[in-house]
């Protein structure tokens, strides 16, 4: 296959599919298999770009989450189980906190359920991390509807500000030593913050001037009537969404208000975006194409999610005192999840990117 970058939205949908799969099971074997699948795809398809090097951080974070989760269960305990693994001295708490037990006997259920829970969270973190690693976040922002283009650019610029800020801070800290300034505390903070902020402000003004000179924020021609139409669409859409979400959360509301309202709201909002986007004359340079590989990737994510969601309850949520079992549909789900590692085009070779 010709090397090219897969559409960022495809990676995100695939990752969200696996996330859905992970969140509908606590079976540790299924979760571990999903983690393996995600890691395999990342290793096969990540680039050498800066955002792609962060996957290791997600791995650390995931491991930390598992450890923390088990530790919480050990500290707060509370699971009813006859099998006590070991005893820890219990810390008595005042009356107010009755019902919470600190330390004390540590049961098998405590450890096992902490482990399952932590593993599930870790899997979700890794899925999101994989999407972030595989898809260029800036290209994803570029997919915003053209009515939101300006906001998207602002976010991109803000993102690129962080490395610059870090660099400024290092520079100013070094410079401070040249003054023999060994101060600590609030006044020392100020000595770093003031020059850094001045620097950042200067740069932002410079960038803003440059962007203005290059046509950022050029508005097309919109009549007042068109603007009013856009406004009405967006406002009505927002109201519809609010009613729908309220209905979703409050179970006493008639069901008729929930999904139809959300649907209507989304439609109206989309109409507003289209109407707002129409007045903006802007084009996109080399947009990422959406081809068969993208469809397959998204399909794999969806299929994996559906297969795990519809799996047997004994498989998805095994009892804590038996060894969890696997089933054919669940194994199939994981195998489908790995498919993008082989059917997607490889990323553009690193020596060209640098």
């Amino acid at each position, binding site marked *: 296959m010709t090397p090219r970058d897969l559409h960022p939205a495809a990676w995100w949908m695939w990752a969200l599919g696996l996330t859905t799969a992970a969140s509908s099971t606590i079976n540790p074997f299924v979760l571990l298999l999903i983690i393996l699948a995600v890691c395999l795809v990342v290793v096969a398809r990540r680039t050498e770009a800066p955002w792609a090097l962060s996957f290791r951080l997600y791995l650390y974070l995931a491991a930390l989450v598992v450890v923390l989760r088990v530790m919480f269960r050990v500290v707060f305990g509370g699971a009813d189980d006859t099998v006590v693994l070991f005893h820890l001295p219990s810390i008595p708490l005042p009356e107010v906190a009755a019902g919470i037990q600190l330390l004390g006997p540590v049961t098998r259920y405590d450890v096992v359920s902490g482990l399952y829970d932590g593993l599930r969270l870790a899997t979700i973190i890794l899925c999101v991390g994989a999407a972030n690693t595989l898809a260029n976040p800036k290209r994803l922002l570029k997919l915003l509807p053209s009515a939101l283009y300006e906001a998207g650019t602002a976010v991109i610029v803000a993102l690129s500000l962080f490395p610059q800020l870090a660099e400024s801070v290092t520079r100013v800290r070094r410079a401070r030593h*040249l003054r023999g300034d060994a101060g600590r505390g609030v006044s020392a903070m100020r000595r770093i913050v003031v020059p850094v902020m001045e620097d950042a402000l200067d740069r932002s003004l410079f960038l803003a*001037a440059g962007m203005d*000179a290059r*046509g950022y924020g050029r508005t097309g021609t919109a009549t007042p009537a068109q603007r009013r139409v856009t406004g009405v669409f967006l406002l009505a859409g927002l109201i519809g969404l609010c009613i729908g979400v309220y209905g979703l959360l409050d179970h006493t509301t008639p069901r008729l208000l929930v999904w139809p309202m959300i649907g209507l709201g989304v439609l109206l909002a989309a109409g507003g975006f289209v109407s707002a986007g129409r007045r903006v004359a802007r084009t996109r340079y080399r*947009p990422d194409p959406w081809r068969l590989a993208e469809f397959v990737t998204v399909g794999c994510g969806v299929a994996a999610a559906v297969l795990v969601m519809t799996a047997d309850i004994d498989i998805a949520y095994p009892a804590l005192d038996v060894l969890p079992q696997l089933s054919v549909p669940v194994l199939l789900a994981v195998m489908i999840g790995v498919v993008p590692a082989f059917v997607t085009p490889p990323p553009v070779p690193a020596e060209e990117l640098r």
Partner: protein
Amino acid sequence: MIELAGVSFRHDGAEHAVLRGVDLRIDEGELALVAGRTGSGKSTLLGMFNGLTPHFTGGTMTGNIVVGGRSVRDHAPRELADLVGYVGQDPLAGFVTDVVEDELAYGMEQLGIAPQTMRRRVEETLDLLGIADLRRRSVRSLSGGQQQRVAIGAVLTMHPRVLVLDEPTSALDPTAAEDVLATLARLVDDLGLTVVVAEHRMERVIPFADRLVIVENATVRSGDPREMLLTSPVAPPVVKLGRLLDWDPLPLSVREARRAARDLRLPDRVPATPPPAVPLLAARGVTVTYGKTIAVREVDIDVPAGRVVAMMGRNGSGKSSLLWALQGSGKRAAGRVEVDGRDPRDEPRGEARRLVGLVPQTAADLLYLETVGLECAAADQQAEVETGTCRDLLDRFAPGVPDDRHPRDLSEGQRLALVLAIVLTAAPRVVALDEPTRGLDYPGKRQLAATLRGLAADGRGIILATHDVEFVAAVADDALVLADGDVVSTGPAARVLAESPAFAPQVAKVLGPDWLTVDDVAEASA
């Protein structure tokens, strides 16, 4: 193409107008060079051509400006983007995207140009500027010259009819600057653009400039470069030499000056004997590494008392790393530095700055208080010296800076003087300066040179890193050239400069290696 009629501009709240009653006309296809002292209003004038002044900067403008038939009064900069391309001083600060190709396309996306046309123009522009091999590179990973060429390309893709450049080479080393200016010359020939450029390396642009615009005392005069240069307040060394020796016609390039100098008879020059080298700072085998990259490789360096040592080399050749390592607060992987038998790295910070004082590249990083007076008081306290020491030093370097002025409102030269005074409050034996001439105009540099010579005469050792060949010629006793972390050339400044064509000052190119500055010639012929 560009027409200004009775244009005046005043910043909000300012007493005096920056520009008053300016009439100017630049015809289609011309290359106009804008010259003037720092703070004379050059940038304000350039900003007017695409409406950044006053639409973006604020302030009050009267009079009218018409560019390509459109009045700047009622068009914001973004609506002039298809007509005027604007390139600023610091290319990196102006990049919106992070990949070269996307950066070139950004402006076209704003204009709503069809995707096929965009693709074609990006390819054409990549070729035109010779940056096709950089297309997928991150803009941050490029060298300064490459970045500036990308910035120029990013406005060229919009097919503007006017190109405005505000000091496009001020942040670049000499080689990178050459690159950019050569590109510019080609654009004028190939595309027939109207180009307006403010540039302090005037000598590179003057040979193909059709018009010289001089901004002085809030007014603007313009005309044929040769005539205008006779009285211009800023002029490159060849022109000054020509003025000094009354050459007619006035030479505009080194080549013309050489021809005029053919019959010139100058007395034999006895090079001034530098003060004897009393060792003060001695560095041996200094190595600085960042991860696997070696920034400085086993460099030996001596800074004798009473001498000025200049360090040259392209951007990224290790100059700054070496200065920080000498000061003691920078990284040093190996080697010894000794000042008076003590290594600044092993001393506590307060003590290290009494051995070596460093003025960093962005000198303003040292400043954080609201007024000059407070900064000076803080410096006295930090150095544990008598109150008023810093203020006295400042008065010596830049007399008459008011105590209640905010450091940001100072001129570039005054700010540098303030930082130098703060560093010298601790009375360091050796003073190191990183790119001190950045942003200084000719008189500012002259002032700095006098300051540095004065410090050397006090028995201090001075070491400075700079790109500015003419400044080195005027101030340095010794020079060394760094390349890729190694010292490739070292010795008396006159010899080091004359040895390499890239570093030879203009006067030396015209009159031979004995003569470095116009002042040398003036002294000899007086």
